[in-house]
């Protein structure tokens, strides 16, 4: 259903360019057949004719794990009760995943599906990498950052012969880092930072896996603005040079999606929309899968063209 655009109902909000799917949320707590505290974000992958989701679940204990969700014949998603990726008991990972694993983003590269996720352990957040070929079994590659790094995404192609990732170290900006073997990383460079006075003035981080488009890499990112009542998380977009991802070709002055609906404004973390995956179908329709209020998964719909236009437009006055 969500792939068939002929009956895709969307809801407009003001002049926002991303329209919400009318049946949002796609997955809420009541759709699960197991007990959980809340539902965070979902990585997205097109696999064997289906759009699969890797959903971060917070368990009643407070720990987190990543569960696979598949579309059913009724057109809804069913989240598997057995975790796809769970906190590891292996000595090498145990201390670093003691609080769970979360926010898996999927990248298809050279015949392998890589999952870049956050390992949350005794020392804070670290980036970790796993791989699968069939979404049945998954194998860990390694812990690939020091603590205090989040929001990692792997580029779906090598850049100048090296693997490349985006990440958010403790400064709250998006950085690019490179590797020859997926285990040893270096050459880190700043990509974009928060902008004072803007909706993304407090923190930014990569959201969905970078998408290759005509102009370069399109990255959907989240921007946070701190208020006395807590942060507001919104979604923006940036286009990066294909060969030099630190060179910004365009960046949206305005968010492409902001919390407005009750399911985005009310939840464990209110006023939050957080993209972790996107998918372009044959009709050039871009579906953004986003977590809302750390409590459900939703879909926003737009086109690459509209986002590119928003990235490239000159600084509009209002």
């Amino acid at each position: 259903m969500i792939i068939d655009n002929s009956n895709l109902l969307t809801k407009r909000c003001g002049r926002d360019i991303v329209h919400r799917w009318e049946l949002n949320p796609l997955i809420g707590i009541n759709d699960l057949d197991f007990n959980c505290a809340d539902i965070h974000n979902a990585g997205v992958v097109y696999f064997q004719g289906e759009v699969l989701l890797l959903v971060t679940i917070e368990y009643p204990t407070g720990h987190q794990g990543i569960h696979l969700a598949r579309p059913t014949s009724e057109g809804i998603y069913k989240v598997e009760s057995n975790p796809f990726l769970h906190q590891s008991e292996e000595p090498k990972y145990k201390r670093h995943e003691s609080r769970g694993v979360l926010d898996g983003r999927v990248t298809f590269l050279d015949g392998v599906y890589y999952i870049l996720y956050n390992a949350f352990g005794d020392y804070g957040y670290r980036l970790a990498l796993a791989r699968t070929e069939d979404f049945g079994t998954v194998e860990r590659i390694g812990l690939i950052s020091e603590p205090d790094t989040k929001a990692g995404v792997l580029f779906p192609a090598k850049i100048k012969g090296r693997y490349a990732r985006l990440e958010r170290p403790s400064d709250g900006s998006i950085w690019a880092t490179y590797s020859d073997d997926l285990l040893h990383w270096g050459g880190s460079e700043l990509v974009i930072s928060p902008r004072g006075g803007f909706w993304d003035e407090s923190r930014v981080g990569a959201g969905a896996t970078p998408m290759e488009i005509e102009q370069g890499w399109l990255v959907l990112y989240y921007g946070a603005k701190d208020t006395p009542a807590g942060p507001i998380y919104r979604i923006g977009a940036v286009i990066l040079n294909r060969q030099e991802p630190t060179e910004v070709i365009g960046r949206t002055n305005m968010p492409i999606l902001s919390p407005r609906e009750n399911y985005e404004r009310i939840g464990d973390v209110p006023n939050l929309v957080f993209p972790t995956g996107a998918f372009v179908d044959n009709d050039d329709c871009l579906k953004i899968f986003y977590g809302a209020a750390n409590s459900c998964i939703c879909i926003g719909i737009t086109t690459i063209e509209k986002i590119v236009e928003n990235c490239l437009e000159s600084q509009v006055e209002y």
Partner: protein
Amino acid sequence: MKKTRCPAGDLLHRWEGNPAITMEDIPFRANTVFNGAPIVAEDGVYLLLRIEGQHGYSFFALARSTDGFNFTIDEKPVMLPAKEGPFALYETKGIEDPRVTIIEDTCYVVYTAVGDCGPRIALAKTTDYVNYERIALISEPGNKDGLLFPGKIRGRYARFDRPIGLGKGCIWVSYSPDLTNWGCSEQVIGPHEGYWDEFRVGASVTPIETEEGWLEIYHGVKMTTSGPIYRIGAVLLDLDYPSKVIKRSSRPILSPREEYERIGDIGNVCFACGAVIADDGEMKIYYGAADTSICVATCTLEQILTEAF
């Protein structure tokens, strides 16, 4: 006109059509609209709106109405942050919370200029409500919620503002012979420990002259573990010495209760920015709700003076 009164005892009645203005009513891309200051014009009531644009910083647009409830918004903003000149450095993060005062037929707007060094109070004027001429930046940084009294007090212009001293947000009054140079500042009211306004207070509505004194409708903040709660209260001040408090409401006259006041970019906010009083004493108070929309509440001047304190 339909209105509802909250059974829990709010003195103000909410208009049943609230919220009066939301982002859906704005004819250009915007994030939110809130904190609108009313202007009584020949053909009705205008509201000078604070709009938070999609970038994240605020500017002003004009809404027009014949009945004070149903508004249409002009196609373009009327005042944007200065890009050049002496104001530009202090408006890099926008202009916020306009308050309108008419003094001797001139329409003045006191607003908060937000720049890299923080908020400052600034003054502008207009003759047609569409073009605004900046007069001066009239405070140092760390100050907001400025508004002018509607007449001179003991021969000088007077204003309220809200400096932050020792982490406390208090209402102060200052005086000026020329609207540009200000001094003789005195504290009016501070947070009321243990009460609904125990964290911060700030002036909200242009002071209303009554026989009993200046009626000031202000905002009070209580900080909770899940963020601040902004409510609306009233205080009555001496006509000649407004730093002298005659009476102060021990409870708010309006508190966030409706969904549109509880849910938004900043939940649990009712923030008044102006009031209009009809000849029969019926009063419309315009307030921002949850930093996301503009609402109207009503009562009579008489009710506030007799029941608020």
